[in-house]
């Protein structure tokens, strides 16, 4: 049906096509936002109100639900804090060291370069799930279960971020600039920290957001490593909520908990959306 619309689109005037585009886009936007609105509304309703049916009008029980959730058995605040710590460290390490790796490949000519660059590109696509078995065994062998180290340190070697940084460097970092810094007597390390990193700021910002979000949302590996309730991150707590006997649960609390893990990301995204959307497009064109 849509295809037909595309073909016959030419028969229509530009105005007609524009009208169709607006209608379809509005519909799609509705389907993107509807769930979050329902989540918001339901988070403000009491359990009794939730049982009584569907509505689009917010109620007044948000704070009560929130207090009940905090008083409950799920360590939500601790989970949030854990997620924050892991994701922030991830973002910093991932971006800093990926830029450094990209700089090594971009600015220097060394013998092994022609092997290492294709190697990194080749391993880029290997998903972490495939090596999870060895990873979990390694972590428990090192006594690092219930520790954030295996969730944070591996982000130093992030081929996808490296690749983005490398592409960005090719278009923004002239080698003559590095040469000039050398003539001025700047050490290599200093050049990287004080000249290269600031120049890469837009790419750094975009990738920091992406690695923060992907770590924030990561469920598979943390669920295999973190067993102690005090160490669990938000996605694991959500999964726990799912396996609890949820029918006996106060549904208001369930919605508040979901809202609590979703809305902070939405707010940050809305503030930074311009850069994020551009960043995705940039990565696409240069891929």
């Amino acid at each position: 049906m849509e295809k037909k619309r595309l073909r016959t689109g030419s028969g229509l005037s530009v105005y007609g096509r524009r009208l169709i585009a607006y209608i379809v886009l509005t519909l799609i936007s509705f389907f993107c936002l509807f769930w979050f609105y329902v989540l918001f509304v339901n988070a403000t309703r009491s359990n009794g109100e939730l049982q009584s049916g569907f509505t689009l009008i917010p109620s007044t029980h948000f704070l009560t639900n929130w207090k009940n959730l905090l008083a409950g058995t799920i360590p939500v605040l601790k989970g949030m804090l854990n997620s924050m710590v892991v994701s922030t460290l991830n973002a910093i390490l991932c971006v800093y060291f990926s830029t450094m790796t990209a700089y090594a490949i971009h600015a220097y000519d060394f013998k092994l370069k022609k092997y290492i660059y294709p190697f990194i590109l080749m391993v880029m696509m290997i998903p972490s799930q495939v090596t999870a078995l060895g990873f979990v065994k390694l972590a428990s062998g090192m006594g690092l279960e219930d520790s954030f180290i295996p969730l944070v340190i591996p982000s130093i070697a992030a081929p996808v971020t490296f690749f983005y940084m490398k592409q960005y460097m090719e278009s923004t970092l002239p080698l003559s600039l590095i040469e000039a810094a050398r003539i001025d007597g700047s050490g290599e390390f200093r050049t990287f920290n004080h000249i290269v990193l600031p120049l890469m700021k837009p790419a750094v910002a975009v990738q920091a957001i992406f690695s923060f979000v992907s770590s924030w949302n990561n469920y598979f590996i943390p669920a295999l490593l973190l067993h102690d309730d005090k160490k669990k991150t938000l996605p694991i707590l959500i999964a726990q909520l799912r396996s609890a006997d949820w029918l006996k649960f106060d549904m208001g609390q369930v919605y508040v908990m979901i809202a609590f893990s979703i809305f902070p990301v939405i707010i940050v995204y809305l503030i930074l959306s311009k850069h994020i959307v551009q960043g995705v497009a940039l990565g696409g064109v240069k891929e």
Partner: protein
Amino acid sequence: MNKKNAKAVRYNKWGYIFLMPFILVYMVFQFVPMVTTIYNSFFENYKAGLTQVGPNFVGLGNYQKLFESGDLWIYAKNTLVIWVMCFIPQIFLSLLLGAWFSDVQLKLKGSRFFKTVIYLPNLIMASAFAMLFFTLFSDGGPINSLLMQIGFIDTPYKFLSNTGSARGIIAFLNCLMWFGNTTILLMAGMMGIDTSLFEAAEVDGATSGQIFFKITLPLLRPILVYVLVTSLLGGLQLFDVPQILTNGTGDPVRSTMTMIMYLNRHLFSKNYGMAGALSVVLFIITAILSLVVFKVTGNDKRKG
């Protein structure tokens, strides 16, 4: 010239120094685990109740068991079916929206707003999103209430107990999460096409439909292949949504159990032999698909 070379050599050792963190961490946290994963796949190593069996070397025994028990095929089929259900609407919507966003003639207002909205679901925690859909689509949940209030159905529809609707919800959720990303990638590709081609076609009297199918699509082929293969790779990793939605059971009747959920189950029950064999199989599939991406993007000279 000679002097410059000497200088270059002096500096180039810094290339190795800057590479060190990556190489070290990669070796320890990705290469070693990969080797142990492959190594473990040749051993019988699991817990039967409280007794530990193995590790005993069994050669390719785990692989044989994996392929002979029909489970792998069922889960592979589930993964593929859900991926297809997700990908077809996704690529379709993305092409349509990408074409509209990049159409200079159309001059859509508020396209930044729409782009922001359609990309939003991509950043949402998949497990929280799945939990939200679980509560919304549960038997006594808001969607059923809504459908009953408007008189569409009389009794609650059991979305999560029917194969079609359970798979449909997973596919829909994944489509919702990824179509924005695909749209932006395709749009960027479409904007990269030389506009003089469109102008020439217009002068020759081509309709916008003809322009789309005869110019845009063929020129977009490398990006389309890239999107297809990376989406297939993503589909292979499908885990969070079905895991949370079905609480790891893959119900109804294992119809939503994916490959990674199967792997996760082996890992949790500490059946390392079978988990290893399954990982290696997944690794090989991934490697083949990655090679396709590598070939396609490597040959794509247009984007420079």
